[in-house]
């Protein structure tokens, strides 16, 4: 009887550790409408209009209010090496991870401020993440116990300046809920500001520079309970500063987007006191639109995190948090706009 209880407790602790590792290795950020717009629409249609003095006058149908909305469904299945962001070598719990996401966004008007244009956005998403890894020799023989649903909601203000720079500020709420236990694993508020500049490199190459700064205020289950101060509910709180550069390459029907990003993160609470991370990511997305509302994609990325600092016991954080991750996936996306 005691053996069974011990195994159950051990299993619960391992699951908790894996969840915390997974939450800690997940990047959450506010959407960047300008970068997304550039990525989705770097290709235009061809219409060989001859030059004239005045120029071609093609009539458009415009909305009066500037209010618009879209909703969609994305499905992505990916082979992931180290999907939970465990420290150490890359090849851990290599797994097919399937993410299904429903998302929506509303643009609340277009406000012309003479030298810039302000656009408020609200949006949200609900994503289901399913793991398929099974190995009876592991502490968690079936990784599907870590399946979770992520809910996000955000309010965002985008200011497009005539110089081409786009500034954004907003706040996002996010929470992860375990499918297995129907409990909240993690929640956070994330106020953030960012700036984006897109510029042409050649006829079919577009560079997109994006920088953002934000602060994550999270709430995760206290690992050692309220009686101990080693772990705390807010130990995953951190500030981050991220620089991202993408090149959008437009072929006939394909868009290929390689991206490099580097993120600096600073933790100051509980077990993670005085911890700093540098997370680098390099990835590529290949998009193939079937129609205006249906798109197929391939994606791959490699991430590496390096942590610095020591915990209360003097142990270096790098043994706990340094990781490498690799993903290779394919997805489809359906979007409806109105």
């Amino acid at each position, binding site marked *: 009887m005691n053996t069974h209880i011990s195994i159950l407790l051990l299993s619960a602790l391992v699951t908790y550790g894996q969840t915390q590792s997974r939450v800690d290795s997940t990047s959450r950020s506010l959407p960047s409408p300008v970068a997304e*717009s*550039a990525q*989705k*629409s*770097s*290709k*235009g*249609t*061809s*219409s060989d*209009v*001859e*030059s*004239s*003095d*005045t*120029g*071609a*006058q*093609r*009539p*458009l*149908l*415009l*909305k*009066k209010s*500037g209010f*618009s909305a879209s909703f969609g469904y994305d499905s992505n299945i990916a082979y992931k090496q180290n999907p939970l962001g465990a420290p150490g070598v890359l090849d851990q719990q290599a797994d097919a991870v399937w993410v299904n996401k429903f998302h929506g966004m509303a*643009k609340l008007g*277009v406000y*012309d401020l*003479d*030298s*810039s*244009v302000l*656009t408020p956005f609200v949006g949200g998403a609900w994503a289901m993440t399913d793991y398929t890894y099974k190995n009876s020799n592991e502490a968690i023989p079936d990784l599907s116990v870590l399946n979770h649903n992520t809910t996000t909601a955000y309010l965002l203000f985008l200011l*497009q300046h*005539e*110089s*081409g720079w786009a500034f954004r500020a907003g706040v996002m709420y996010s929470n992860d809920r375990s499918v297995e236990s129907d409990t909240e694993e993690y929640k956070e508020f994330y106020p953030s500001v960012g700036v984006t500049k*897109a510029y*042409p490199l050649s*006829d079919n190459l*577009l560079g997109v520079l994006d920088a953002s700064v934000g602060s994550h205020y999270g709430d995760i289950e206290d690992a050692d309970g309220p009686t101990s101060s080693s772990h705390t509910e807010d130990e995953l709180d951190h500030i981050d500063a991220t620089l991202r550069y993408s090149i959008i390459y*437009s072929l006939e029907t394909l868009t290929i987007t390689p991206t490099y990003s580097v993120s600096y993160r600073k933790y100051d609470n509980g077990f993670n006191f005085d911890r700093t991370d540098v997370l680098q990511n390099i990835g590529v997305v290949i998009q193939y639109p079937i129609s*205006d509302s249906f798109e197929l994609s391939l994606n791959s990325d490699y991430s590496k995190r390096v942590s610095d600092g020591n915990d209360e016991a003097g142990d270096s954080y790098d043994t706990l948090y340094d990781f490498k991750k690799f993903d290779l996936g394919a997805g489809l996306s359906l979007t409806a706009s109105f």
Partner: protein
Amino acid sequence: MIYIKISLIAAVSTAAFFLSASSPKITYKHGRIDAVDLSDKDKFDPYLIDVNTSLTKDLLIATGVQGRLESITPKNYWRLGRDSMGTWRSDTDFWLHSGSLLFCTEHAQSIKFSTRESNATFNGRGTIILEATKNGGFKFIPLEGKGTITTAKGGTKEIIGGRMLLVLGKPTYFGDAYDIDIMLLLKSSRLVNSYPTSLPTFKKMGLAIYIQELKLKGKYDALIGDATTNENLEMWRFGSAKKSDGKPVTNKKGIFGRIFSSD
């Protein structure tokens, strides 16, 4: 002291008067450009003109098939397209007989535009293309800008980047308004692209394109042509025959696709 102040005010006022009323000069020309001095009513004797010629109110300017000219004044950019004819009555007053004209300013002011039949007053700043139409009126196409346009019978309307207004009749009134694709017009307009200097309002035009993109519902597969009469406006359809029901047939593309594509 008071005399100095009065002298200064008088000097500034005089300078402002002459600046506003002065005639622009040709700062760039390409191809053949003729002028006729209308002050001598007994003869009609065209002669060739060149850079630095003052565009006085008595000169009727006519550009040839490949001709075009530009006049940059302290406040304004003027460009007269090919096969065009008109007169600068001053730096703030232009009469267009035929062809097309681009006007650009970053300084809010009052500008009079007139054609054979119609006239209107623009108050504000912006980048505007005028195209004379067969019916004697003109198309007023603001690429960007802030301000109003006023006609005798049509009242006053706020200008909106990309919203073309038909200016018709005598007394003048407004015809239909059409939102037109600024990006496509910019790419295909010689008045915008075929001059050595770039317009100072390109960034604002970019913003006008951005606003249009944010509000876009669809594009018609058609191009607007001439207004042959006050009731008729030519419309040239392109694309597949199935898409001829007058509804928008092309879904919107993203802003950067439109700016940087080869569309």
